[in-house]
């Protein structure tokens, strides 16, 4: 059984039962899941969590739906990677990357969709639906397939071919909508009121869907030995994830899973081409002014973020910051993370890393802090952002001479020590009696 107390309006505080509701009837404010924290505190322990599955469902006591067989592809419990080489480049101390590229469909959306569809199924919905430009569509189609639910996914007709394939392969109904982004948005808003029997994951079951993001905070704390970090950098699209990461840490403190009451600074990362929250933060105002997105970070391109104000509130309340980075900085952020830590992030991850770099350079993220950066999607999702600029170091004919020439001319000086007489592991000299007869010939002979 779950520990949900009900739903509550974030604006006027009015209470509602835990049904398929997402806005307050009275003031149109968004609804939030509330829990019976006393009962959770009396039930949940670190051992109980450790005995659970290595997925988000190990934290079921703190999620809005309990189901012994959730709609699950294995989302969550992704690696938390100590990033010393990246930290050194950025002048930071203890830095960790929460690598959500490792989720089943390659992005953090699997966390929220797994929760949303489990709840939707419990509420009696037979059809899972969403409108998406990529990651959400992939995840909804995959989870619906796994659950044997029908799915209807609306995508813009001009979506890149690879993104369409990553959704259609799961066999649901994929509807390509001709029109501008605004046209698609309008149609989908109308559909959500015309088809109340469909679970639109980020609309009529959004209240539950959003709770899945709390698991990022739960995992980070557990993976750090049940300690909260000092500072987390979170990308902002709708702003929902940032607010739920904060809620996650607060809940862990509240139910007694952490040794200390957590005090986590939360900073937001946006692309300059879609930065309504970073702009409001910089201007010191409360009003989030909607923008028309123009950025390669399409998974963050929400010009009118539903949770923008709430994200801004969390940032200010926790002593965090918010900054925006250009598309060039995003690409450099992707390369920097890949080059230093071997993690290939999508453009949203580039936004996070580039913003982390910017905040570190400004002294906002400090070397004495234990820092976690959320990398929320795999680079293969947005590989087109880099294909024009990424080339092999050199292209050669299939001969040793060509390779040697390339080594001398095209490899940079930092590689010189790895030449023919370079350092490396000591290799035992072969016994001449058993050595192969085809000894390497002198170079001039080849």
């Amino acid at each position, binding site marked *: 059984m779950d520990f949900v107390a009900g739903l509550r309006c974030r*604006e006027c505080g009015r209470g509602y039962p835990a049904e398929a509701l*997402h*806005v307050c009837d*009275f*003031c*149109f*404010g*968004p609804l939030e899941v509330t829990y019976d924290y006393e009962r959770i505190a009396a039930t949940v322990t670190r051992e109980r969590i450790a005995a659970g599955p290595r997925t988000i469902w190990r934290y079921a006591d703190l999620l809005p739906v309990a189901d012994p067989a959730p709609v699950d592809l294995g989302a969550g419990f992704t690696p938390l990677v100590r990033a010393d080489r990246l930290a050194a480049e950025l002048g930071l101390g203890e830095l960790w990357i929460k690598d959500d590229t490792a989720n089943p469909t390659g992005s953090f959306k699997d966390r929220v969709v797994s929760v949303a569809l489990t709840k939707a199924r419990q509420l009696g919905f037979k059809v899972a639906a*969403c*409108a*998406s*430009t*990529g*990651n*959400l569509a992939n995840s909804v189609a995959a989870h619906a397939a796994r659950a044997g639910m029908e799915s209807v996914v*609306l995508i*813009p007709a001009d979506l890149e071919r690879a993104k369409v394939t990553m959704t259609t392969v799961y066999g649901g109904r994929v509807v390509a909508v001709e029109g501008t*982004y605004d046209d*698609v*948005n*309008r149609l*989908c*808003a109308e559909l*959500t*009121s015309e088809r109340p029997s469909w679970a639109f994951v*980020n*609309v009529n079951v*959004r209240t539950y869907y959003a709770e899945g993001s709390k698991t990022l905070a739960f995992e980070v704390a557990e993976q750090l030995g049940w300690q909260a970090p000092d500072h987390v950098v979170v990308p902002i*699209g*709708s702003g929902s994830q940032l607010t739920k990461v904060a809620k996650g840490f607060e809940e862990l403190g509240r139910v007694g899973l952490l040794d200390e009451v957590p005090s986590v600074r939360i900073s937001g990362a946006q692309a300059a081409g879609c930065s309504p929250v970073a702009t409001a933060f910089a201007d010191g105002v409360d*009003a989030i*002014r*909607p923008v028309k997105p123009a950025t390669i970070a*399409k*998974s*963050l*391109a*929400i010009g*009118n*973020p*539903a949770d923008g104000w709430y994200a801004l509130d969390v940032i200010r309340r926790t002593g965090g910051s918010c900054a925006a980075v250009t598309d060039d900085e995003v690409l450099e952020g992707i390369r920097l993370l890949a080059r230093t830590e071997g993690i290939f992030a999508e453009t*949203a991850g580039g936004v996070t890393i580039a913003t982390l770099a910017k905040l570190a350079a400004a002294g906002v993220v400090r070397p004495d802090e234990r820092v976690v950066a959320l990398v929320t999607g795999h680079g293969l999702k947005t590989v087109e952002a880099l294909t024009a600029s990424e080339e092999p170091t050199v292209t050669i004919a299939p001969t040793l001479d060509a390779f040697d020439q390339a080594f001398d001319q095209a490899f940079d000086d930092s590689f010189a020590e790895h030449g023919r007489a370079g350092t490396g592991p000591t290799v035992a000299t072969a016994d001449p009696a058993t050595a192969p007869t085809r000894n390497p010939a002198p170079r001039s002979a080849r």
Partner: protein
Amino acid sequence: MTRMRVKLTFPEALIREPIVARMVTELGVVPNIRRADVGEHTGWIVCELGGGGADVDRAVHWLQAEGVQVDLLGDVVES
């Protein structure tokens, strides 16, 4: 009857104009206001626009032409 939940954001230049009243009298679309915040420099209204047939769409275009920013409530299309 069509209904659309929107946030109307008014720039400073329109704060003193009776835009909403004109929408009702000239276009026959009625706002059901739920939340609002009107200050000296900017203002917004969260409301449901109600009207017959294409009236609501026409009202949205009219508001935009007058300089009001019209946004649907919530994120519908996500990445």
